């Protein structure tokens, strides 16, 4: 047996604490209009919700030289050879992935390994686009975890906006280490 493990557990057990029950999480009301609430939340995080037409125009604008898209119906926009080694994504201009659902109260979007064959993708890419079905919105984080349930993905991510920092004099700067922009295509 690991002596430190036993030491720690025995120290806690020696306290003979009475177990206090965990509370039941109350049901809280959520916004009526999930789509507009999501858009407001996302904008506050410096994300941007766009429609399909705007997205296609963006893809065809030529401003993203290296694109990798795993989103259904948009795979053909991939113009790189998918690397074996994820380090090679370091000069990727745009990644396009599908999100599973969005959370209206904070603009967070859930992705797991179903959407992310490469865990590094939404971070290493210079710009990120997430496709989101507007019927797949929940009101708050409690509903979000109810929806996730006990799925068993090795990695899961709530992402809510582009990478940002305010570590220099509290000045907000977008694009610290991860994606410099997040666009959400609502379909």
């Amino acid at each position, binding site marked *: 047996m690991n002596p430190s493990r036993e030491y720690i557990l025995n120290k*806690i057990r020696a306290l003979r604490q009475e177990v206090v029950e965990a509370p039941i999480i109350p049901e809280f009301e959520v916004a009526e209009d999930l789509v507009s609430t999501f858009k407001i939340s996302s904008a506050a995080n410096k994300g941007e919700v766009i429609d399909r037409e705007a997205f296609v125009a963006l893809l065809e604008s030529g401003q993203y030289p290296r694109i990798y898209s795993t989103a259904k119906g948009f795979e053909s926009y991939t113009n790189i050879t998918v690397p074996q080694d994820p380090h090679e994504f370091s000069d990727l201009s745009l990644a396009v992935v599908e999100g599973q659902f969005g959370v209206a*109260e904070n603009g967070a979007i859930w992705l797991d390994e179903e959407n992310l064959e490469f865990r590094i993708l939404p*971070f290493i890419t210079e710009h990120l686009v997430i496709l989101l079905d507007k019927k797949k919105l929940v009101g708050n984080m409690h509903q979000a975890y*109810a929806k996730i349930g006990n799925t068993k993905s090795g990695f899961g991510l709530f992402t809510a906006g582009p990478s940002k*920092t305010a*570590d*220099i004099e*509290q000045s907000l700067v977008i694009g*610290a280490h*991860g994606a410099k922009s997040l666009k959400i295509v609502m379909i």
Partner: protein
Amino acid sequence: MNHPEKAAVFLEDKENAKWHDETLWFVRDKRDVVSKSIPEWEELRETASQIKDNVLSNLDEYLVEFERNALANGIKVHWAKDAEEHNKIVLNILQQNDCKAIVKSKSILTEECHLNQYLEKNGVDVVDTDLGERIVQFLNQPPSHIVLPAIHLKKAQVSDIFHDKLNTEKGNHDPSYLTNAARLHLREKFLAAKVALTGVNFGVAETGEFVVCTNEGNADMGVHLADVHVACMGIEKIIPKREHLGVFLRLLARSATGQSVTNYNSHFRSPAKGKEIHIVLLDNGRTEQLGREKFKNSLKCIRCGACMNTCPIYRRSGGYSYGSVVPGPIGSILSPGIDLKKHSSLPFASTLCGSCSDVCPVKINIHEQLYEWRQEITKAQTSINAKSLAMKFANGIFSVPFAYKLGGSMMRGALKLLPHSITYSNLNTWGKERDLPEVPKESFKDWYKKNKL
């Protein structure tokens, strides 16, 4: 130097102290706005607090459950009873992987263990990748705030540091320019690292997964590129169920920075193919604190920093004045439990206004615990200092009614006559930054006699 002495040094630069005060209040203000946008805020705090009550009362079971599930998920679990063992475990993992350089995202726990210094002594190059932490690392300083590590520095200072270390343009103070320079510099480090180290915000017993929250994405940039992820976690960071994440993620960022949620909330359940995840579970005095009935609730802390942003003392004395890894109100109730003598001035670094308790997302009774620590420290102090001499004198006066009556009228006279040089001498710390009150003409007792209804 103790807290008041270091605070005095901080306050010498009046302009900077004012800026520090206002900047943190700005963050506190953002927290107020966003928390008020949620009608159930108080209920959420209460729920979170009760979940933590459950965690602390059943910690051994949850740790065992967490370990069992994490192992089943293919995560390697290590246990460390103190900082020394923690650091050895980490070094051992690095040596096994023949690793001489790591990238690290924010972890107050590794600050607590002085891991960086230990690894560097053993030939490992450590790169802190949170922008604020990288800035203070360039200066060989610890973070001055647990969420905003470089909050004590102005952009001109950051510009000078970056000019020196990253060869940025001299005099270019633009935060976007400076951040981009750090982005390019740290990208190289991310791409080269074989091992990445992170802290842990929440470990879920039910699933064996753990969650790491950042705004910059630095934790994820590190771990997904490296072959090995080492996650260092205090044993109190356990929560029972996945559904409880909903409660804590709603509270954490709103309390910390006034955002509705952090940008990246990564849930690590099992390593990617061909990779490794290690978790180091650390005690380092936590089980000791759990055994202190009056102080165990301090272990509920989720490290949001809200108590620092709101604290009138923290805002006006700076993080370094505390001389403890976690500064501010929460640090002042955690640190005496680790080293009572070293941190004996910290529970007095408070006005006991209670604002810290009011903003705490898990409802820790911080100001009450500060008061309790004061009792403990006063009891433990054997040497008589100037203050306790005054207290003994006061005790004599208050216990004899005649002396109190006489003393009162003498005092009313004395306050008028007391020379400025005595009141504001260095012997009387009370006199610093304070004025004596206007003296009433008569005592309350005399007034009552005259005006009896």
